[in-house]
């Protein structure tokens, strides 16, 4: 039973990992707490459903959802970050919340607020080892998300874009003086981070087979907590934070009830912040600035 919960927790955690990494990219590199992340997650998951419901084959629906979410992320870059960078960091936060309300309500206007069931493309694909049941879509999601983080790590380390992003994270002013073009690097970062959380939405809808216009809100709160727990700006911290939050959530459901999940998850977050105000693996300087 404990092994089963461990498996379920890690698989749920895999989704939080992608959302936490997305938050970390925005916050660690641009000092931007992007509140449109829940909406990008929702667009990924919900539009996959909408595409399938409209008769598209699965891969096409996923591709469509990812494309729309990527465009939405670029729109946020253009209308929020580009206009308001350099000012107080609270300002882009308000504007990105505007985008959260905008995207959620656009979906609401078109498809209504009901939660929709989405059929699994894999049927009832489970892998059984003795008593243990492992859902194959979930397993695929977990492996994919860890693989993507490795890919991101390599990209940040090796490529020119990665060096640009890391120099921006270090010091935006110096990076600009050294010839990093912020206006070229930032859109790519938005594209990358937007795709990460949209993909998390796709994986969530495939694994749990339920979508709604508000599906991003709770998941994003957990992803945000995962980022903080791991320490901000640290991608591997976000991975561990995501997995820990997933495990805590599943064990809290098992030991208490589904209603107690938030008390336990956020109680742990509150306590860990009080005991160690810079997260588990974070750069102590990050996140301390004025918000």
């Amino acid at each position, binding site marked *: 039973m404990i092994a089963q919960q461990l498996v379920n927790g890690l698989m749920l955690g895999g989704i939080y990992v992608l959302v936490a990494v997305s938050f970390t990219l925005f916050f660690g590199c641009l000092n931007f707490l992007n*509140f449109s992340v829940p909406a990008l997650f929702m667009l990924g998951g919900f539009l996959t459903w909408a595409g399938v419901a409209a008769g598209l084959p699965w891969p096409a629906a996923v591709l469509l959802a990812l494309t729309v979410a990527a465009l939405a992320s670029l729109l946020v870059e253009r209308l929020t970050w580009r206009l308001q960078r350099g000012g107080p960091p609270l300002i882009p936060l308000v504007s990105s919340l505007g985008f959260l309300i905008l995207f959620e309500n656009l979906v609401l206007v078109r498809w209504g607020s009901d939660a929709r069931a989405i059929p699994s493309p894999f049927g009832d694909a489970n892998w059984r080892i003795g008593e243990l049941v492992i859902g194959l879509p979930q397993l695929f999601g977990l492996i994919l998300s860890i693989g993507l983080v490795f890919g991101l790590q390599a990209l940040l380390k090796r490529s020119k874009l990665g060096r640009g992003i890391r120099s921006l994270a270090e010091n935006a002013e110096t990076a600009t003086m050294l010839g990093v073009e912020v206006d070229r690097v930032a859109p790519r970062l938005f594209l990358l981070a937007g795709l990460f959380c949209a993909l998390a939405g796709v994986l969530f809808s495939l694994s749990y087979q339920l979508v709604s216009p508000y599906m991003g809100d709770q998941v994003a709160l957990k992803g945000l907590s995962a980022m903080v727990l791991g320490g901000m700006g640290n991608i591997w911290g976000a991975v561990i934070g995501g997995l820990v939050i997933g495990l805590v959530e599943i064990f809290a459901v098992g030991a208490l009830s589904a209603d107690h999940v938030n008390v336990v998850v956020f109680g742990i977050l509150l306590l860990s912040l009080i005991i160690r105000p810079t997260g588990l693996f974070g750069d102590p300087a990050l996140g301390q600035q004025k918000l």
Partner: protein
Amino acid sequence: MSGYSAAILTLLAINIIAAYAAWLPLAAGQVNLGTAGFMAIGAYSSAVLSNEFEWSLPMAIAAGAVCAGGFAMAIGGPVLRTRGLYLALATLAFNEVVRGILINLDVVGGAAGYPVIGHLGLVPIAACAAGIFLLALWLGASRLGMNLHAIEQDETVTALFGVHVPFTQLAAFTIGGAMAGLAGGLYGHHFSFIEGQHFNVLLSVTIVLSVVLGGTQTVWGPAIGAAFFTLLPEIFRGAAAWRYVLFAAAVILVMAIRPQGLVTRADLMRLRRAVRLA
């Protein structure tokens, strides 16, 4: 006055009080994303006092505000040691913990919500909002307000000038918590029903953002921001399902045009000069 406009004005009055609750710590640069949690504490404690112990409404609501302020003071000690985003998230976590506990507390109805017997109309609630506004005006011009503004500008230099920074921040956080508790108590006794779900993080975030949109530099900002966030969706009501789409577009547009908020200190000075000339 029609019932509809009275209902909107009451909501506006409550939102204005909540906005000042979030504004006080924000004036010192501290983002409190737990405002809805303090509102919930005020709403539930005042409702229990007026329902079960039959306290008079003013006494119960005042006690609810004191209770929320007490919680703010108790949690403020450890939480205010964190800064920036960590503080925002610690208060956000506090909000979720409070909400989670209330939803599981069967004495006050749990997830089904809690009916409140006593009822307050527009007039007393508007009077409270006016009182809070005057209090904010006074606080803004007081030594506390100046110290908060100085901390927002530069914490280290403020401390060098002999201001006790942690105490000042805790004072702002506590008074803000009490104001939020007042807003919550008024909310419960006006709508006659409270449930944990209402006081969620999104409410806290929206309150803080309405203050930022109005402008944090002056005492007028929070009231203007609360009015924007309360009235604009009503103005767009004719657009039916599209109203929040239009509202969100308006928020994005305003922040693109006026990133410092709707009311800034420079605006007020210009206004004062114009009045003097005229």
